[in-house]
């Protein structure tokens, strides 16, 4: 009597919202990679001098490039938020019989994120 096999469909990740959100979370890495390449190219122009650098920045002020940056930002934010929210699953801290509540694991990560971002912004934006 032959058992019947039901192979998983290639579009399995479209069949359920939780699977789709998972796939979108993973695909944020494409945007993160793309932005980091963009930043690398920007730095290579910075190395070539103020003229080339300014020209690069002007070229990338177009609607298309700003849209790319905004989409990359949305993707990066989704990565950050899903990442920090998962930290309590990976980092389990016990006090005797009790487990430290998830918010106290994720919370400090968010706090560090905001603090570091603020410091970097201050360093860059101060004249």
């Amino acid at each position: 009597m032959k058992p019947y096999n039901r192979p998983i469909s290639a579009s399995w990740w479209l069949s359920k919202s939780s699977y789709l959100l998972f796939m979108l979370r993973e695909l944020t890495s494409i945007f993160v990679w793309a932005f980091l390449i963009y930043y690398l190219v920007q730095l290579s122009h910075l190395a070539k001098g103020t003229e080339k650098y300014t020209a690069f920045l002007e070229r990338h002020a177009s609607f298309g490039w700003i849209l790319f940056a905004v989409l990359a930002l949305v993707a990066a934010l989704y990565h950050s938020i899903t990442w920090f929210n998962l930290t309590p699953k990976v980092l389990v801290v016990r006090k005797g019989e009790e487990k430290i509540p998830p918010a106290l694991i994720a919370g400090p990560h968010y706090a560090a994120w905001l603090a570091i971002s603020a410091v970097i912004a201050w360093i860059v934006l101060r004249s």
Partner: protein
Amino acid sequence: MAERSITLEVFRYRPDKEQEPTFQSYTVPYREDWVVLDALNYLKDQVDGSLSYRWSCRMGVCGSCGMMVNGTPRLTCAAFLKDYYPGPVRVEPLANFPVERDLIVNLDDFMQKLKSVKPWIVRDQEQPISEGEYRQSPAELANYKQFSMCINCMLCYAACPVYGLEPEFLGPAAIALAHRYNLDSRDQGQSLRKDVVFGHEAIWQCTFVSECSVVCPKDVDPAGAIQQEKVAGALDLVKSVLMPWGSR
């Protein structure tokens, strides 16, 4: 008062009669307090005695009655008809497993994987009886208790796309079980389990979809267990690089 009813679309596979499975539609009485398992038992008792499926305790502790209900792995003894009314309710065997007959799946792969993680207390040296029992504080128990609650219902395997794509994947319940023993203060077998748990077909295949933990009826959180084992695996690598003379 007119009696309400609900339709069940049930997966049928009779290998002695057919090559391909079919779906059979049945109408069962709708009762507020019925679960899908009650509907299946009604069907078998009153309508179609040929329907085959597994069940036992009907109260969510034995792990026998796992099936796909409207595409989600559920314990049918815990899936209330009122949550699916007016239906129809599609009942299929657990995904990612070969179907033996109707709603019954082949468990062999799962059983073999459970055994492969050596799910028992492993000691370098058994403590002599004269020294009494292995003592464990409530805090030491708390370390692994969550992961010991698994009822082997296999809903996590049905939910896991990695297992669906890669049948060699060790899977959520087996890894959570290994983690349960690795965290047990009485156990000294972590290095013995390494080959299997830190092997290529084990924790590293997991991409943290987390659907296993979402469907688990006992809140075992196998996804968490797997990530914690990944950390252990990474630390093990660091140790083996920094201290290659270390034991085993």
